[in-house]
């Protein structure tokens, strides 16, 4: 192997303050060769981002102590003066971050923010820098560079902003690019675009890349070598292919076992539990057996017909409505008891709005929602109890959806007390029954939310949803914010609860690999409409609509063997569902592919696009 670009030796990071100190990175060592991509992978709190920030010396000097050695071309970055380090940042090592929405200065133009680096490190005049910036925008595959130059970040989509960040990073032809979860906040189709861009630029620009991520699929796709981090240590490192094929450490095995793999359910019809591996012992728990099929029923539990929800866009002083967001448009589906229907699509496709409209958290513009044959949309305020007792919701962010000042026992009991369904004593007993059902100790009822981890909090939210013994749970991105191993556990829990209580789930998610595990049926949404609906196996194995295909094609597969197979990347951005006030939605035609599998007849506009092939 050639001389590495950067060598990190025995890196240790401690945070101190208020008389205590805590070591968060313990003796991490690795090196990266020219044109190599090293993935640093781990769950939240594993110390992977802190490691990157420590290499760049971007941690606050007052509270962080960094020791060890970070050598770049024979110099130790940790021993440099701050002024010399400024000459390295953005020049020899560049960095891009997770949040493209907030990583650009809202008050400065895109052009200003890119050319600034050139002025800083290359002593260019602003005129020279402008010409070079336009070239960089082209390089980052940003169309209409001259116009973008004058635009502000808020005028760009998330994917575009990440491209701008990449243009900034490339400005001074750095030797190393540190990418800290650069695609985590993006839609899966946009993620595929950004990954392809980084891959292409690595070759064009002779870059080495340190890629930090929690997503094993992304790792398999992009990394030559991989280092797995846990609790501030590198537990295992090696060639990516070898590491995936034969992981040595139990932790790595546990992590890989918990990763949902698109396509792993091929040929099966029913959802299946994850076969989990204990990260300490390496023992497998369960075999990932499929669950029993839901009881056959004649009438659906929930029947949604032509449900539409719109948001007025007002402008001007009198708030004249100048347009409407058609968030959900003529959405129709049935959901049977004991069944999981997944609503999937990119952000802004209307999947969450549909869930909220069914819950009456958003008022629908038109349509019909029948629960056990009763029209939910016609319920008066006083009658909403009918709905609340039967349908409960779990949200994405388990940190924000629990009151920090309420003991979790009280939080779980609250729905019962609010609806007058139980006395205080009964509610307390019920809480003690529910906590073990979601894998928590009944004694924990007296604790506050901050004493729990993210996964435990989501279990608490599930217990709260179960308190009223609902028939249907609307789970809006309920596992999206969880670490991969925790995610697998929570999904297994949801499958168990479905079996035991005959629950129906409306599972709203953007994550196709998770959906493949959990769903009986799938509905794909695009710009507020369902474009394809059918049994899970039919949708995943015989997708018809270009939108479905595009979603499936963009999912990174955690299998390094497929790395060479360059996929066709659809470079289009998701359109927005804003329509003029007088817009009349077109009548849609449907085609039946197989029993239960229906697809909206799509027009020519889909045929000439790369993803449609």
């Amino acid at each position, binding site marked *: 192997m050639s001389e590495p670009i950067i060598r990190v030796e025995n890196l240790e990071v401690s945070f101190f303050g208020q008389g205590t100190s805590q070591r968060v990175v313990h003796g991490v060592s690795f090196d990266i060769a020219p044109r190599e991509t090293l993935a640093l992978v781990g769950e939240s709190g594993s110390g992977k981002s802190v490691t990157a920030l420590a290499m760049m010396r971007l941690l606050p000097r007052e509270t962080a102590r960094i020791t060890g050695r970070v050598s770049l071309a024979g110099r130790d970055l940790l021993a440099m003066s701050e002024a010399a380090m400024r000459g390295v940042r953005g020049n020899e090592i*560049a960095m891009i971050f997770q949040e493209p929405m907030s990583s650009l200065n809202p008050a400065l133009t895109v052009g200003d923010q890119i050319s600034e680096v050139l002025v800083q490190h290359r002593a260019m005049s602003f005129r020279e820098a402008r010409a070079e910036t336009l070239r960089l925008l082209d390089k980052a595959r940003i169309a209409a560079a001259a116009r973008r130059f004058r635009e502000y970040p808020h005028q760009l989509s998330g994917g575009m902003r990440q491209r701008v960040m990449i243009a900034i990073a490339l400005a001074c032809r750095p030797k190393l690019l540190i990418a800290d979860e650069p695609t985590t906040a993006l839609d899966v189709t946009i993620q595929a675009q950004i990954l392809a861009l980084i891959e292409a630029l690595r070759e064009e620009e002779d870059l080495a890349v340190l890629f930090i991520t929690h997503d094993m699929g992304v790792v398999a796709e992009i990394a030559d070598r991989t280092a797995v981090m846990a609790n501030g240590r590198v537990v295992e490192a090696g060639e990516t292919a070898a590491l995936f094929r034969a992981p040595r450490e139990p932790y790595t095995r546990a992590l890989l076992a918990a990763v949902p793999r698109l396509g792993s359910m091929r040929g099966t019809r029913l959802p299946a539990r994850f076969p989990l591996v204990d990260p300490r012992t390496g023992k497998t728990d369960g075999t990932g057996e499929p669950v029993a099929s839901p009881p056959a029923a004649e009438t659906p539990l929930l029947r949604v017909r032509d449900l539409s929800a719109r948001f007025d866009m007002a402008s001007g002083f009198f708030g004249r409505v100048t347009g409407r967001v058609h968030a959900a448009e003529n959405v129709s589906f049935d959901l049977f008891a004991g069944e999981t229907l997944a609503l999937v699509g990119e952000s802004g496709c209307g999947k969450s709005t549909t869930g909220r409209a069914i819950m009456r958290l958003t008022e629908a513009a038109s349509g019909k929602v029948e629960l056990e044959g009763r029209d939910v949309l016609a319920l008066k305020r006083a009658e909403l109890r009918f709905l609340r007792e039967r349908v409960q919701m779990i949200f994405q962010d388990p940190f924000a959806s629990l009151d920090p000042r309420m003991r979790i026992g009280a939080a779980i009991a609250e729905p019962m007390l609010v609806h007058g369904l139980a006395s205080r004593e009964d509610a307390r007993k019920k809480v003690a029954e529910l906590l073990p059902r979601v894998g928590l100790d009944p004694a924990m009822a007296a604790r506050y939310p901050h004493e729990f981890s993210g996964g435990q909090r989501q279990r608490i939210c599930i217990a709260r949803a179960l308190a009223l013994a609902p028939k249907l749970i609307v789970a809006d991105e309920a596992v999206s914010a969880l670490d991969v191993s925790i995610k697998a556990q929570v999904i297994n829990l949801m499958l168990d609860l479905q079996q035991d209580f005959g629950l129906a789930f409306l599972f709203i998610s953007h994550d196709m690999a998770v959906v493949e595990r959990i769903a009986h049926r799938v509905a794909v949404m695009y710009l507020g409409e369902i474009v394809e609906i059918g049994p899970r196996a039919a949708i995943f194995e015989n997708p018809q609509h270009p939108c479905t295909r595009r979603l499936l094609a963009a999912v990174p597969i955690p299998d390094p063997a497929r790395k060479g197979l360059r996929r066709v990347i659809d470079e289009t951005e998701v359109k927005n569902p804003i329509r003029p006030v007088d817009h009349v939605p077109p009548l849609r035609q449907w085609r039946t592919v197989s029993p239960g599998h229906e697809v909206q007849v799509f027009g020519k506009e889909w045929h000439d696009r790369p993803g449609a092939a």
Partner: protein
Amino acid sequence: MKALSFIAGRALQGLIVMIGVSLIVFFALFLTGDPAAVMMPPEASRAEIEAFRHAMGYDDPILVQYLRFAGGVLSGDFGRSLRFQRPAVDLLFERLPATALLAITALLWSSLLGFVLGTVAAVRQNGAVDFVIRVISLLGQAIPVFWLALLLIIVFSLNLRWLPSGGIGTAQQLILPSLALGAYYFSAITRLVRASLIEVLGENYIRTARAKGISNFRIVVHHALRNALIPVLTVQGMYFASLLGGALITEIIFAWPGIGRLAVDSIQTKDFPVVQAVVLFAAFTFVVTNFLVDVAYVFLNPRIRL
């Protein structure tokens, strides 16, 4: 386009506020009962009050009176001062330069110093310098203006005999009142700049700027202050407007012949037309300043511009 309609919208809002204020000012005259009886001396006879009522038009229908009042205001006629027998608006404009001079001086020093100290405190957050600045600015907001004004007079006029204790005309006479008046605003702006800048310095885009190798000085001046300025500007506009409406306590203590003193004198002598003129003028400056701040917003915040 969006910016224009935003500005037009704000202008329209200002107009509606002014109509509302004029209604309140007009009807406030009737809150104390019969305006003719209130304005005339207590020993006036019934016939004299009736004659006054008729002369002032207080016996006309209320709508007619309001339209007459509003029409007068629009043509610059706020009625005649009962005390001085001169147009109220003349009295107002005589006093305006004094008030404006005091307000601008106070706001200028307090803003400049507030910006500098607020920025220094934010950059040196939790350090010794920050601590000192925080104590000073806390004191400045906690001390009531009348006490500070008296203290300044005792120290600088009576004991040291450096500066005059009142009056208007020389630069020396301006120092103490503008110090007393600006102390509160200086503290408020320091604290606001500090808080706003600390928040902005914690933003992700500041981390991006550091990762680009930009110097700390440029990060603060070019990247952070511009964003931190937006909330500060709003507050400053309101301070300036309220100062222009007259600084009652400061003007009285330092015998400063400004609008504030005119207002207090007119209230005491039941000189209603002058009171109305002062209140309307204060509201008007408030509306105009806020409008100007909104316009400045458009330039500072590209999210409004388009």
